[in-house]
């Protein structure tokens, strides 16, 4: 692999700027004449807007303009859209309610923007925003998805009767019913997946600058996918044609899905910049982030698992209601459908599966993809069911999983996915060994002597990443293709720039992508720079989400490298008067195999640009581009084992050991992969133990700051034990599967299974706070009233 090639623990090239305070985030950008935006937001979850009086605000010091939704609509700015079409089982299309960037008629969640103030300073803008008088007529609100479907519930959108967005299904219902009819045992559970707020540490921000002379906009923004942002802003929101709009995502402080989407605020800054004739900056405060960043999860599920007499799973039936909030965010429709129900087979050979998903509107913040997106929800259902079923039939949960594992590949599940490669027993064994499963009984007994309840829980997760062949996602309703692009530019002096449509907001692309080049040409990573996040520099790209930067983004780089290598070899063969097939690249040199003839890489590059002596008919230059469209999803999988100790007097859970055994296929930089897993695990443990976006009945978000929303802190989580197993993904050139989301997908059920194992009752939902655990312990102690 070489010191810096594939598989090496190369320290990050990008770190120096971050550890010295020289990172350049959106809020660090300034533009001459810049004004600041502050949004006027609804304090009500549901209300009609009777009037908006901006006159007092307009007279405040420093105010340039106070703008409202009527002006936005009048200027032809389009509504926000959801870009993935889902059809209900009756064939009707999903019901998309109108979503304006500034609402003029009816607000549908607390925090929805109704006006914007632009002023000389941020403080002046805020002061003036407070002076905008909005006359609301409050309407009844609904926050819970089940309640929203009830007769008489407040209705959000005229397009969606009963607040129903779609009623969708997947799988073979008849075959599934037949399986249940002959089942020897059926496990049934009602499972909630709590609502979360992504909480990237850098709040969303935008700086929009309109150049009147060129009729051109520049937008610096916190985006995971600047090209998609430009496409949507241009094609759907009518901000400007693509060639008149440059979107730059500079250093971005975390995303976790929340920075995929195009939100009202970024659009409004662009529009307001033209309206006011000055650059406009907006930076969310944390409460704005809580109220307006797309939330994650919020599922209510009823699941049934059918077993035969040998404890083999023969069927799975799942009914899920997913809360999408007040509006359909950009990819919201895909999350509880193709990113969720298609993973319900887990790692198991289940011949019949049927899943019905209903999605509904409520007076809450829109819900969309958050780290894992659908797959954590599926994993939580499947893995809680696996553990519960094993207990009910009296089998060891590890052995029950082992008995039902898929063992031959490719494996076609009943829910679309075709798993290409894996070895689930290998990761289960690795996890059990690392967790010392055999010694658990001794540890439990020792803990009992100290008055503690000790429990152990498994989660054998699978996810589908890369997302995915463009034709396939198109047939499933996606409005975009999900390929990636790359360009490799070798400069005349032999240094290399790699342009990628992938985007790093913490993942370390500047290092790992450079490792591919070091591996291929034997040049140091210091001679390589990775260019990303600017629509003026990179031709096009689909961005980073779904653990796709490696499996899809790097595959595009590999394709471009193949072309560069082929041309470099042709030039070298010509210069050294050798056969092209005899040229090998080693240690930064192009050599003629079996001879002492060689040329340094930079000389070949120089020859390509001087063009004094190239093979006949060859174009000068050494620069190649490629688009890579994946051939399938990739399927990272693994087993996590969580061990907890619970204080029965306080209900407090301590994670005393956490083991992750992952199969990510080929790993480029183990240090970075481990970091991704650490972070994912902590977010998953946060979901399981601490985090919850909690609304009161009137639709007020009770957890809208770090004072109220419990983020995992350093003393809430342990140090982790990580191990990997490897089966290569056959679908891409490097055999990569992706690692960014696994931790958040696999960990919640492992934690909850450990807790239910410790306390001896299955009646607990996330987050398993000390209060809930204590109450569950007390409830289990009480004799059932009916008995």
């Amino acid at each position, binding site marked *: 692999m070489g010191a810096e090639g594939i598989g090496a623990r190369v320290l990050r090239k990008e770190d120096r700027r971050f*550890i010295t305070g020289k990172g350049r985030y959106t*809020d660090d950008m300034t533009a001459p004449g810049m004004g600041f935006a502050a949004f006027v937001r609804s304090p009500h979850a549901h209300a009609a807007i009777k009037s908006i009086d901006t006159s007092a605000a307009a007279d405040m010091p420093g105010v340039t303009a106070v703008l409202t939704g009527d002006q936005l609509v009048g200027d032809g700015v389009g509504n926000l859209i959801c870009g993935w079409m889902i059809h209900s089982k009756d064939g009707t299309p999903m019901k998309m309610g109108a979503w304006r960037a500034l609402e003029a008629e009816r607000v549908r969640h607390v925090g929805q923007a109704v006006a914007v103030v632009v002023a000389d300073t941020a403080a002046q803008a805020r002061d003036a925003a407070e002076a905008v008088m909005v006359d609301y007529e409050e309407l009844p609100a609904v926050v819970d998805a089940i309640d929203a479907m009830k007769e008489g519930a407040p209705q959000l959108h005229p397009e969606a009767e009963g607040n129903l967005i779609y009623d969708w299904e997947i799988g073979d219902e008849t075959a599934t019913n037949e399986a249940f009819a002959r089942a020897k045992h059926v496990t049934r559970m009602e499972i909630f997946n709590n609502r979360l707020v992504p909480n990237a540490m850098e709040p969303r921000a935008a700086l929009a600058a309109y150049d009147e002379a060129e009729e051109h906009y520049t937008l610096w923004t916190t985006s995971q996918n600047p090209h998609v942002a430009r496409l949507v802003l241009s094609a759907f929101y009518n901000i400007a044609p693509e060639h008149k709009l440059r979107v730059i995502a500079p250093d971005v*402080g975390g995303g976790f899905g929340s920075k995929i989407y195009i939100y009202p605020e970024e659009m409004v800054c662009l529009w307001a910049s033209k309206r006011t004739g000055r650059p406009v900056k907006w930076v969310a405060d944390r409460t704005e982030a809580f109220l307006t960043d797309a939330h994650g999860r919020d599922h209510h599920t009823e699941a049934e698992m059918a077993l035969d007499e040998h404890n083999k799973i023969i069927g799975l039936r799942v009914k899920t209601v997913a809360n999408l909030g007040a509006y359909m965010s950009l990819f919201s429709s895909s999350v509880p459908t193709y990113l969720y129900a298609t993973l319900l087979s887990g790692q198991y050979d289940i011949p019949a599966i049927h899943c019905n998903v209903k999605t509904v509107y409520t007076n809450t913040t829109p819900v969309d993809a958050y780290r894992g997106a659908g797959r954590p929800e599926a994993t939580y259902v499947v893995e809680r069911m696996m553990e519960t079923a094993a207990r009910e039939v009296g089998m060891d949960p590890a052995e029950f999983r082992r008995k039902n594992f898929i063992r031959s590949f490719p494996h076609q599940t009943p829910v679309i996915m075709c798993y290409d490669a894996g070895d689930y027993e290998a990761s289960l064994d690795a996890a059990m060994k690392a967790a010392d499963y055999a010694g658990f009984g001794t540890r439990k007994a020792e803990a009992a002597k100290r008055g503690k309840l000790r429990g152990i829980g498994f989660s054998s997760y699978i996810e589908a990443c890369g997302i995915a062949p463009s034709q396939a996602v198109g047939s499933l309703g996606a409005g975009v293709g999900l390929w990636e692009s790359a360009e490799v530019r070798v400069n005349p002096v032999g240094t290399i720039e790699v342009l990628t449509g992938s985007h790093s*907001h913490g993942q370390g692309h500047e290092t790992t992508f450079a490792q591919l080049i070091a591996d291929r040409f034997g040049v140091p990573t210091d001679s390589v720079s990775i260019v990303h996040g600017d629509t003026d520099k990179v031709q096009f790209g689909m961005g980073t989400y779904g653990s796709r930067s490696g499996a899809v983004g790097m595959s595009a780089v590999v394709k471009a490298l193949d072309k560069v290598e082929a041309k470099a070899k042709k030039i070298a063969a010509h210069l050294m008067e050798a056969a092209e097939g005899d040229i090998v690249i080693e240690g930064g040199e192009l050599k003629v195999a079996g001879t002492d003839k060689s040329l340094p890489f930079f000389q070949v590059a120089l020859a390509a640009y001087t063009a004094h002596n190239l093979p006949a008919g060859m174009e000068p230059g050494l620069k190649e581009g490629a688009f890579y469209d994946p051939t399938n999803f990739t399927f990272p999988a693994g087993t996590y084992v969580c061990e907890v100790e619970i204080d029965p007097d306080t209900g407090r859970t301590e994670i005393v050991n956490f083991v992750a055994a992952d199969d990510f296929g080929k790993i480029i930089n183990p240090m970075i992969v481990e970091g991704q897993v650490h972070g994912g695990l902590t977010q998953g443990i946060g979901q399981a133990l601490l985090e919850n976006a909690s609304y009161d009945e009137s639709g007020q978000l009770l957890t809208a700051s*770090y004072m109220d929303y419990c983020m995992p802190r*350093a003393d809430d989580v342990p*140090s982790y034990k990580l191990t990997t197993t490897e089966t290569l993904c056959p679908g891409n050139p490097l055999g990569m599967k992706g690692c960014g989301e696994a931790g958040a997908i696999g960990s919640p059920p492992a934690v909850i299974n450990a807790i239910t194992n410790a306390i001896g009752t299955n009646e607990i939902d996330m987050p398993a706070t000390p209060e809930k655990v204590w109450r569950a312990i007390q409830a289990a102690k009480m004799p059932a009233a009916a008995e």
Partner: protein
Amino acid sequence: MATVTITVNGKKRSAAIEDRTLLVQFLRETAGLTGTHVGCDTSQCGACVVHVDGKAVKSCTMLAAQADGAQVTTIEGLAQDGALHPVQAAFREHHGLQCGFCTPGMIMAAVDMINRYPAGLDEETIRKELDGNICRCTGYHNIVKAIKAASDTMRGMAQAAE
């Protein structure tokens, strides 16, 4: 409006500012030092930690006027003559950062923590002491490792100097 003078990273900065100006705003907007970040507005996340007269302070919770006459060190002032501070070096060596947004506050808090525990730090103490700093990327695993390593390094340096 009030005129305040703050010595930032050894350099005196005077400016007439609105009374409500926070220290973090003074640092970012007046002094042009954007390494100090704002992550939460409620003194919870610690992305804005700087040193005021040698002690870690959340600069979103202090008025610039309160720092009048004080010596402030920000993340930009930590490396000396291009040589990284041992805590900065340890964060890189142990992959203690990903997106980098919480990193300046983490590093400034860690330097303060190590200063307060000259006898060294164990993992449990580091985790408890990091209560005022939130990171969403790293899961803290490598941050804890980095601080432990930096603490050991700095203790070794201190002993060698004695």
